[in-house]
């Protein structure tokens, strides 16, 4: 792998409309410690989900499991996928993914919940 000491990231920025170039800085290089912390957190959270599943929490079991999964997902997205350090348009793309997924899920569920001629869903 050829080594390029420093490349002229800033030098030639800003020539493409305002297309998100202005605020450009070099790639984000995370520290090893950062990755290892996240890794540990993910393992702990995995153990936590399994443990939580053994508890009797009634209808809360699924929301708790989903909550933990979401936290894990957010950690992966923000740190492993560097979203936290990415340009605005990348964040927008990620937000759009979540938003549209929710449209699909929530609006469809509205129908199922609102069907007065059917029994309410049996459970979670």
């Amino acid at each position, binding site marked *: 792998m050829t080594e390029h000491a420093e490349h002229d990231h800033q030098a030639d920025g800003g020539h*493409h*409309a*305002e*297309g998100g170039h202005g605020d450009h800085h070099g790639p984000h290089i995370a520290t090893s410690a950062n990755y290892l912390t996240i890794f540990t957190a993910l393992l702990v959270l995995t153990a936590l989900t399994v443990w939580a599943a053994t508890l009797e929490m009634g209808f809360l079991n699924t929301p708790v499991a989903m909550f933990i999964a979401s936290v894990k997902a957010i950690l992966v997205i923000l740190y492993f996928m560097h979203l936290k350090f990415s340009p605005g348009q990348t964040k927008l793309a990620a937000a759009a993914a979540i938003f*549209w997924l929710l449209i*699909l899920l929530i609006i469809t569920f*509205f*129908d199922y919940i*609102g*069907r007065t001629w059917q029994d309410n869903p049996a459970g979670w």
Partner: protein
Amino acid sequence: MSTIAQQGAAEHRMPRDHFLNAAYTIKSWLLTMDHKRVGLLYLISITFFFLIGGTFASLIRLELATPEADLMEADQYNVAFSMHGIVMIFFFLIPSIPAVFGNFIMPLMIGAKDVAFPKLNLMSWYLFIFGGTFGVLTTLLGGVDTGWTFYTPFSSTYSNSNVILAGMAAFIAGFSSILTGLNFMVTIHKMRAPGITWFKMPLFVWGMYATSLIMVLGTPVIAITLALMMVERGLHIGIFDPALGGDPVLFQHLFWFYSHPAVYIMILPGMGVISEVIAAFSRKRIFGYEFIAMSSVSIAVLGFFVWGHHLFVSGQSIYAGMVFSFITMLVAVPSAIKVFNWMATIYRGSVSYDAPMLYALGFIGLFSVGGLTGVFLAIMGLDIHMHDTYFVVAHFHYVMVGGAVTAFMAALHFWWPKISGRMYPEGWSRLAAFLIFAGFNLTFFPQFIVGYLGMPRRYHVYPEEWQLLNIMSSAGATILAAAFIVPAIYLAWSLKNGKISGPNPWRATGLEWILSSPPPEHNFPTTPIVEEEPYDYGEVIDNPVHEEEHEKEREHA
């Protein structure tokens, strides 16, 4: 009626080198990385599919000329309308303007050397052809009879036709569409030349952006829906079959989550074209640029909230139905905003009636009828009466043919000189535009009436008292079919014999028009820098045949 084509008296010469004569081998086309050539590959492919779809349409109208079943039995008729719908929607209309003109013109408009991912672009075309092969195979093996909607459990359990093949065809073509949308989004974000800020982009580019948004967000859902349907058909595990505990309404939710936004995939590019054409032939800056741009995006976004208007009588919750009904009517607002802005642009413009403009004017009228009848259908109470009648058929043909196909014809006539370097015969082109408009209305207007009277769609027989209206419709379809053949002939003719157009026969603004026609293989020798607003027609009115143009020509000759 004066036209710009009549005024342009100057003699032009073909440029010496351009993308068409850069290489002639088959390989140079099939392995091309040039967005312009990819656009033309699509143009040829979708013309082929338009022919197939049109053939099925003719069969349908032929059968419906009489109330009895004389040409086809019910089963064959089911195949005819299903194949017509599948081919026209997935293989003609969805790729039409985006894949042809989006590919050819959009990168030129933003001053880019190419789309962001040229290889991916070519791959999209191959995927399209691969999917299309499945489509052709389906046809050859006897077709499919589920309708373009593939509703379960008929498609997954009861149909005895080639459902899997047809499903695969749409599935694969879907990936082509996803990749095109992705490519365009990145291109528009990242490849704009200096000076072309978001609000200086031509409105066609905005249209492409909004369309791509839907392609990227919606198409994966239809892919998974079709996949689940095919799994169900293969394994019968009850995903959508109520007899096995499944829920067919879920299929409809998933299907329309894509397919309602997909109708905007078909119309948004058309609206983009119309904005370009109206401004160019009114010689005026487009009225309400920001509103038109933003309405495209808001149509794309709002379009994802209304799919339930296809499920009013499917057993959907009435509360959901009420909300869907309301939001559906809201979507008409941004559509109307566009129409008003186009009208305001034409108002007091110096209008010339070349073929593209004739199509654009037709578009405004026909799309308005289609959109307004959509609002009728969005009213739940009314839709219980109209659902699955010819009223719906007329509604969507007004938007899809009167709107989208008309816009496609406008685009074809507007950019044909750019693509080929030649003009088509003016008289013929205007005649064809009139014929298409007349034939179209004769075909589909009676369907509003017969649908309102209660004629259901998708039947091959009907009571005698509706024959007159159906005959009118079939007669109109004959005119329409003939009218579509006319442009095919004169455009082909013009390739050799047309008058040489020069770089900018319409004296239009926009980066694509400063290039030679046909454009050079490498679009811009150096990245252009743009300073002025789009649609800067101010000076052009005072000075119709002006110096500037000639200068440009000499530069590029």
